[in-house]
C-alpha cells in the first residue's frame, strides 16, 4: 500500500464515511462511519428505529444520502442508480420475503441470473445449459430443488426467505446484505438457515441485520451497534456485550 495510512484504508471492500440522512429534519442516520473488510461477516444490531435498515437502504441506493460517502471497491455508490449498484456487486435481501409470487421458483431464480439485463438482452436471453445448471445448483443450495416448477406463492414463509437468498446467490455478489434473514422462521427452519448462511458466506463479505443474539454470536466476525442513527460500539461480540451503553440501550432488558 503506497497510500497514507489514514482512515480511508483503500483495502476495505466497503467504506462508509460521515453518512447522514435526514427525513424532514429527523436524522435517521447521523454521521455514520463503517468499514467492512473482504470476507468479513459484520452484523449490525440495535434497538428498533436505530436506523439499521436505513443503512442498508443507503448502501443499495434505495434511499439517497443527505451527506457522506459510501465507497465500494473504490467506487462511490451514493451517486449511482440502484441497478448499477447491484451490477457492481452489492446484493440486498429485504426484511419481508420479496419474491415474484406469480412466477415459478425456477423463473424467480432465472430472472436473478446476471445475464441479459438490458431490454434487448432480456428479449434475446436463451435458457441454455449453463443457465439451467446454475439455477439447479443454487436451488439445491437453498433446499428448493424439488420445487422448481411450483409457483412461488405456494412456498412456505421459510422457503420464500430461502428463495430470496438464492436469488441473491445466483448473482454472486461481492457484498451480501441480509435484513433479518431468520425472522419469522420456525426453529427447524432457523437451524437450516444458519447452516445455509454459514455455507454461503464463504468468499464474500456479508452485512447482516439480526435480532437473534444466539445467531449473531454464531456468525459474526464483528458487531456494530447502532442507536439513534449513530454507532455506539463496534468490535467482537464479546467486546460489545461488555459495553455499558450497549447493555443500557439494547441488551440489558
Amino acid at each position, binding site marked *: 500500500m503506497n497510500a497514507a495510512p489514514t482512515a480511508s484504508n483503500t483495502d476495505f471492500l466497503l467504506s462508509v464515511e460521515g453518512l447522514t440522512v435526514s427525513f424532514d429534519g429527523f436524522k435517521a442516520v447521523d454521521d455514520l462511519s463503517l468499514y467492512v473488510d473482504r470476507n468479513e461477516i459484520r452484523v449490525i444490531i440495535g434497538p428498533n428505529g436505530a436506523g439499521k435498515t436505513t443503512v442498508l437502504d443507503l448502501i443499495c441506493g434505495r434511499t439517497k444520502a443527505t451527506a457522506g460517502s459510501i465507497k465500494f471497491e473504490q467506487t462511490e455508490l451514493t451517486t449511482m442508480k440502484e441497478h448499477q449498484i447491484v451490477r457492481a456487486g452489492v446484493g440486498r435481501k429485504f426484511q419481508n420475503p420479496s*419474491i*415474484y409470487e*406469480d412466477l*415459478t421458483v425456477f423463473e424467480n431464480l432465472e*430472472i436473478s441470473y446476471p445475464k441479459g439485463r438490458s431490454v434487448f438482452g*432480456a428479449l434475446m*436471453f436463451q435458457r441454455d445449459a449453463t443457465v439451467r445448471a446454475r439455477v439447479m445448483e443454487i436451488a439445491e443450495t437453498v433446499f428448493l430443488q424439488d420445487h*422448481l416448477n411450483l409457483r412461488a406463492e405456494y412456498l412456505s414463509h421459510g422457503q420464500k426467505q430461502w428463495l430470496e437468498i438464492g436469488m441473491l446467490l445466483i*448473482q454472486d455478489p461481492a457484498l451480501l446484505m441480509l435484513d433479518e434473514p431468520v425472522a419469522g422462521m420456525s426453529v427447524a427452519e432457523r437451524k437450516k438457515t444458519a447452516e445455509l448462511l454459514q455455507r454461503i458466506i464463504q468468499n464474500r463479505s456479508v452485512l447482516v441485520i439480526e435480532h437473534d443474539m444466539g445467531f449473531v454470536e454464531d456468525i459474526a466476525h464483528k458487531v456494530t451497534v447502532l442507536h439513534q442513527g449513530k454507532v455506539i460500539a463496534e468490535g467482537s461480540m464479546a467486546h460489545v456485550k461488555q459495553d455499558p451503553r450497549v447493555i443500557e440501550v439494547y441488551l440489558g432488558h
Partner: protein
Amino acid sequence: MSGTASVKTFFLSRKDVVCILILAVVIMVVFPLAFDNFRLNLVGKYITYAFVAVGLVMCWGDAGILSLGQGIFFGIGGYAMAMFLKLEASSPENTKIQSTPGIPDFMDWNQLTALPWFWQPFHSFTFTVFAVVAVPALLALVIGLAMFKRRVGGTYFAIITQAFAAILTILIIGQQGYTGGVNGMTDLRTLMGWDIRTDHAKYVLYFISCLLLIGCVVFAYWVRASKLGRILVAMRDKEDRVRFSGYDVADFKVFVFCLAAAFAAIGGAMFTLQVGFMSPSFVGIIPSIEFVILCAVGGRTSVLGAVYGALLVNFAKTTLSESFPQLWLLGLGALFIAVVVLFPDGLAGLYRTWIDPRIDRLLGRAKPEITGSIPPAELTETTR
C-alpha cells in the same frame, strides 16, 4: 441432466399454436363466410380495436401499467394514414374548384394557402408507413422516459395519460385548419390509385388487418415467452426486487409502453383504411377507456382473450345500440363494474377455470403445472 443442453424449445407450445390457428380460422374463414360485406367491414373495424387490446395486455396485464391514453396512439396511427390518403384525394385536378387547389379541402375552408410543412412528407407512402409506427412509438418513448425514469406509475400514470388524451383531442379539434377539426379527415378515396371504397378493396383490407393482427399476436407471444416477458410480470409484482436484481425497471416499462403504442397505431392505420375516415372521436378519453374495457373483458393477462373481448364487446355494442341506444350505455357501465368486481380475469379467466380443464380431461391429459415434481430436463417444456 443429460440431454438438456440440446433442448431448444420453440416459443409457442403446441396448445398455443392450436389456439392461434383457431383464432385465424374464426376471423379469416368463419367470419367472411358468415357475414355480408357490410357486417364484415364492421368486424374489420373491431379487429383494429383488438390491436390496441393486445398492446394493453402486455402493458397493463403483464407489466401493471394502466394507460388511459391508448386512443392517442390509435389516433396518431390513424391520422398518419389519413393524411396520406387525404393528400392523394386532394390532387390539383380533384380540387380545382378550391381557391388553392392541391391542398385538402378543410385547409382551403380555413383560408390556408399552402400545405403546412409537417404535411409535406406524407406525400410518400413509405414515409407514411414508417410514421404510422414511429411517431406514436416516439411519443410513447418521450412520455415513458419522462414518467418512468422519475418513477411515476400506477394511478398517477393513468391520470396523466388521460390528460394527454384530452390535450390531443382539444388540439385536433382546435386546429381545424391543420387537422380537419371535429369532423376529422373525411372523403378518403384511393391508396396509390387503388379505390379503397369498393367492396373488393374492403374485403382485401379486412384480410390484411387479420394477418397483421395474427402477426402482432405471435409477436406478443414471443415477447411474453422471452425473459423480458417474465421480467414484466415480476415488475408488476415486486418492482423493487427487480430493481435490486440489477435491472433498470424504467427501461422495461418504456419498452412495453412503446410496444403497446405501436400496436395501437397499426390498428389505427388499418381503421382509417377500412372505414375511410379518421376523427377526434377515436382519440380522446372515452375511446381510450373503452379500449381498456375491451382488454378487461377479454382478460387482462391473455392476448387471445383480449382479441375475443374486443370482438364480443363491439358486437354487443353494435347490436344493442342499433335497437336500444339507451340500454347500451347502461350495459357498458354494468359490464365495467361486473368485470372489475366479479371477473377480474375476464373471459380468459372463465375459460381457464371452466373450459380448459375439461378439454384437458377430454383429451386425457393431466395438468402438470402446479405439482412441481417434474424432472429438470423437462423444465423448458412447462415453464415457458
